């Protein structure tokens, strides 16, 4: 008998129920096979317990008792009740989802006031093959038009922001520079119009001194109208700089608003930062014009 065949008899070794032939075969095989010997050695403790008639009787009594089914035990029921309790607790403690909070709303800008009695020059945009239809430019005054001509490109009227911003509009930028970065990073003007409507107005300017003349070059972070020194507001286009004509005086008042504003009181505390020769001015009060003054120190 091979050790593998003899191993089938292991179950009878502990209970002492092997026939004489089976026992001889098992033990002879165990003398030749170490693994089988070790298995028999591990059965020794069980064999000694089962050698006691009282122990056998006790085990037989346990086997003769009707087997308890799973539902007859208290543990499954306790587990089920505990799980149900946890479920009820979880449902009762669960908060209802919060209603969406409207973070910002942008009102559509009012149409600029136009004096119909005065003759207003009307500029026509050059026709392009892609856009054959005529489009009338926004009514602007002569001064900005002339200035825009110097800047080689006439900025189109600022794109009108959508009537209503998305319910969860982005929060205002943390700093003037980041405000400009955020604006410049928007690749699509339409998307920017929506986004910039929620940004605080911000301007970046540089003082240009040439041949004794002082000019200011502005760049806006959002579409709007810029008035320098009480001049007629000129439309500003995103990231497109606007340079003023030569300025005089020691100080000049600057107004940048989403709508044309010729005069407004100075802002209380615009945030002003200077970096790399440029000055960043941001209106901390959102939805109000950015009004500040720039000292013009003559060389």
């Amino acid at each position, binding site marked *: 008998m091979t050790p593998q065949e003899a191993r*089938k008899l*292991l*179950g009878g070794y502990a209970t002492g*129920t092997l026939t004489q032939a089976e026992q001889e075969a098992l033990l002879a095989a165990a*003398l030749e096979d170490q693994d089988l010997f070790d298995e028999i050695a591990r059965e020794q*403790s069980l064999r000694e317990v089962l050698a006691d008639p009282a*122990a056998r009787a006790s085990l*037989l009594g346990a086997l*003769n008792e009707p*087997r308890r089914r799973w539902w007859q035990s208290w543990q499954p029921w306790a587990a089920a009740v505990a799980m149900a309790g946890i479920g009820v607790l979880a449902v009762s403690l669960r908060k209802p989802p919060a209603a969406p909070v409207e973070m910002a709303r942008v009102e559509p800008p009012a149409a600029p006031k136009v004096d119909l009695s005065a003759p207003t020059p009307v500029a026509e945009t050059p026709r392009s093959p892609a856009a054959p239809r005529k489009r009338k430019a926004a009514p602007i005054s002569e001064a900005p038009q002339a200035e825009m001509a110097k800047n080689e490109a006439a900025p189109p009227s600022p794109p009108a922001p959508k009537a209503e911003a998305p319910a969860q509009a982005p929060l205002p930028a943390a700093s003037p520079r980041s405000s400009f970065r955020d604006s410049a990073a928007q690749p699509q003007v339409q998307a920017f119009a929506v986004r910039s409507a929620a940004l605080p107005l911000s301007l970046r300017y540089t003082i240009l001194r040439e041949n004794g003349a002082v000019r200011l070059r502005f760049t806006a972070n959002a579409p709007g109208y810029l008035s320098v020194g009480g001049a007629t507001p000129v439309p500003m286009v995103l990231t497109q700089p606007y340079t003023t004509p030569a300025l005089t005086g020691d100080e000049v008042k600057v107004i940048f608003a989403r709508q044309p504003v010729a005069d407004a009181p100075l802002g209380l505390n615009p945030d002003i930062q200077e970096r790399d020769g440029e000055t960043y001015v941001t209106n901390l009060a959102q939805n109000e014009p950015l009004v500040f003054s720039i000292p013009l120190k003559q060389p």
Partner: protein
Amino acid sequence: VARDEVLAKLRERIVRFAASHLARDAAEDLAQEVLILLHEKYGHLETPEDLLPLSLQIVRFKIMSQRRKSARRGEYTQVSVTDLPLPDLEPNPEDAFERKEMLQRLSRAMARLGDRCRELMRLKLQGKTFPEIQKIMGAAAINTIYTWDHRCRKNLLELMGGKWEA
């Protein structure tokens, strides 16, 4: 098989088995003590059916004795086998307690066996041999009973945590 040949094989098996529980030197000494005991006290036994179960019983007693001694002294290092007392082979309070505990674990585990295994165990505890069990349970072949018994023992061992002794 000659008695000396049986004892020589027994010694080899005992050394290798004891070496998995004791240091190699201690295992050698343990096997030697077992053989001396078999020679001096049980010289009338000659067959493997008599010698092997007896030698396993002695080995188990000696290993258990050493473990208890180490635990009592807080020792977990090797103990010289010469310090180990010769086994009494008569039940002592510690053995009685261990057997009682094992019996309780067996009872609980057997109560959780399936119907076929419970019936098989019941017949074995009643002293029925495998051929008798085959007839009672109506199995076609004796190998079927061997296979059932192997599975039931494995199941029982799992229910007892993987080993018979606690």
